[in-house]
């Protein structure tokens, strides 16, 4: 049996390489199918691994609360808001919170100027607690202090990218930048945090919260974000429930009304991302399944033609002593090898494609193929080969030697 297997593989390989172009075209369906699934999987897996790492670095014990307005209400001009009152309420009433800080995004211009340089950046008003919540520390100078907030000082802490974009000196401390027509003194430079999903986390400007409020003027309309980190003993779920109850009461929401805010955790975000990625993988997997099916039919078609074409050869082999299983095995293994080779080429192509995609899009995580994807791709293409090889192989094995010898 083993002997026959080796001999059949030998002759199958010979026949595959004797018709290189035809073999390639035959297996093209499999190649394309496997290549596309591997490309997608390698990109999404790379992304998912990267997202996992990134969110782990964000810390799993931090929460973000922001207002949420359903699209329908947005159309009606209704805007849900989180207000400083909500912040105060949470600070006073909620348990299990280590640090809490409001974040107020600049709602007019995010323009920042230094000398003749102008840049756009994410300008946020926040408090000293931000460094605990966001795990963001300064590499030079100091962070925002509580007194900065109380006195509405015009100072700023900037990220690495902002410094570069504005061509600020290596040490930008005590330089002055212009934000919204006001001069701010730079007191601190943040540690570099890297990218998430191609978005820089170093392109930020932090100013004292109260300063930002005064810059924006009309305090009644402010919509803030609240970021907080949990104390070590606190359970994420308990805190979330507590916050939700507090805010629902504060916003006078009836039991049949939906939340007008969203409480997000890093973990939740990660799960959402992974869900999307999983869905994409499944959908593409389905499409690829179909293309592998079509590829398999292509192989069957060519194998049937090949059996007809080699009828006389089959007759010769039978005349000199080939048994049914010799012929069956030869054609089955030929189909199997064809689709496996297709699978391998597809694997390489797909990984190349994935790497290309990952490298072309700046900031995209590197592609990676998990072992199960390789096993799946090869297993599935092998299965297709056997499935669609059986019919032609059986046809060949059942040929009558005399008829086959006479075949012209």
């Amino acid at each position, binding site marked *: 049996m083993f002997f026959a297997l080796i001999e059949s593989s030998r002759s199958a390989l010979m026949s595959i390489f004797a018709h290189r172009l035809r073999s390639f075209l035959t297996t093209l369906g499999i190649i394309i199918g496997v290549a596309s699934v591997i490309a997608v999987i390698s990109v999404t897996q790379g992304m998912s691994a990267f997202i996992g790492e990134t969110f782990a670095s964000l810390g799993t014990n931090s929460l973000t609360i922001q207002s949420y307005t359903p699209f329908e209400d947005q159309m009606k001009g209704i805007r849900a808001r989180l207000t400083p009152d909500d912040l105060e309420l949470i600070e006073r009433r909620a348990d299990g919170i280590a640090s809490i800080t409001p974040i107020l995004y600049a709602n007019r211009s995010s323009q920042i100027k230094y000398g003749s340089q102008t840049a756009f950046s994410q300008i946020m008003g926040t408090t000293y607690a931000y460094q605990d919540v966001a795990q963001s520390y300064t590499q030079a100078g100091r962070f925002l202090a509580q007194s900065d907030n109380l006195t509405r000082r015009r100072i700023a802490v900037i990220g690495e990218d902002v410094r570069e974009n504005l061509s600020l000196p290596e040490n930008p401390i005590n330089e002055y930048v212009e934000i919204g027509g006001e001069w701010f003194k730079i007191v601190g430079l943040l540690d570099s945090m890297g990218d998430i999903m191609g978005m820089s986390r170093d392109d930020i400007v932090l100013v004292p919260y109260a300063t930002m409020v005064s810059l924006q003027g009309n305090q009644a309309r402010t919509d803030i974000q609240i970021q907080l980190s949990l104390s070590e003993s606190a359970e994420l779920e308990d805190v979330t429930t507590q916050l939700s109850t507090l805010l629902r009461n504060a916003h006078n929401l009836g039991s049949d009304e939906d939340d007008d805010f969203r409480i997000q955790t890093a973990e939740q975000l990660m799960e959402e991302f992974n869900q999307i990625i999983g869905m994409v993988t499944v959908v593409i997997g389905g499409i690829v399944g179909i293309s592998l099916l079509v590829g398999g039919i292509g192989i069957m078609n060519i194998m049937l033609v090949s059996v007809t074409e080699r009828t006389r050869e089959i007759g010769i*082999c039978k*005349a000199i*002593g080939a048994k049914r299983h010799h012929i069956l095995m030869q054609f089955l293994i030929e189909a199997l090898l064809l689709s496996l080779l297709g699978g391998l080429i597809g694997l390489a192509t797909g990984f190349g494609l994935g790497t290309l995609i990952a490298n072309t899009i700046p900031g995209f995580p590197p592609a990676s193929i998990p072992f199960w994807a390789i096993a799946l791709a090869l297993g599935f293409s092998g299965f297709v080969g056997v499935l669609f090889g059986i019919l032609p192989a059986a046809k060949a094995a059942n040929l009558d030697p005399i008829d086959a010898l006479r075949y012209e």
Partner: protein
Amino acid sequence: MALIQLQGITKYYEMGSQVVKALDGIDIEVLKNDYLAFIGSSGSGKSTMLNILGCLDKPTDGQYHLNGTNVENLDQNELSEIRNKEIGFIFQSFNLLPRANALGNVMQPLIYRNIGLKQRKQVAMEALERVGLGDRTDHLPNQLSGGQRQRVAIARALVTHPSILLADEPTGNLDSRTTIEIMQLFDELHAEGHTLIVVTHEDEIAQHCQRIVEMKDGKIFNDQVVEKGTAELTS
């Protein structure tokens, strides 16, 4: 005991409503080291005879003992095994595998005997050298002349050391000079002790043999032993 023993062999084909009697009650014995020719015009049943003798086809009726084995009750796989062990085929159109070189063609029957590659090569080389093609082993069939191709086919038939060599019009596709060469090779093989059965319609070929069986309408018409080597092949 006779190497081949046929008793009351008949082979009927149904052609629509008509029944064609390709073989009609054949009784014949072939002994070891016989050099026998079946002759007859086309339609005389000699091709069917060859198919039956070569275990490619089964008779409608009658008994066939080959080297002591009753072939009657064997299935396709067992017949394949018998063909591999007992019979060496030499065809008019050579019937070589087009994509295998000379050595590969000669090695092919040994694969079905589960003989390893190294030994296969060695045995096949010996067979090729025997037919005088030791220097053409890596040529593909289409790179060889007709005579060389037939030599490869003869080597392939010899390589398994079969009890009989069955040749079907072995020189039908060859020119007269090559025909002489091939028939000389046959004579040598006979002298070495092989049993040869040649199916032909050419008297010159038949004259090489020691025994000529003439067929007509599916029956044996004449069966005579002749003096060896009387025929002169003219070019």
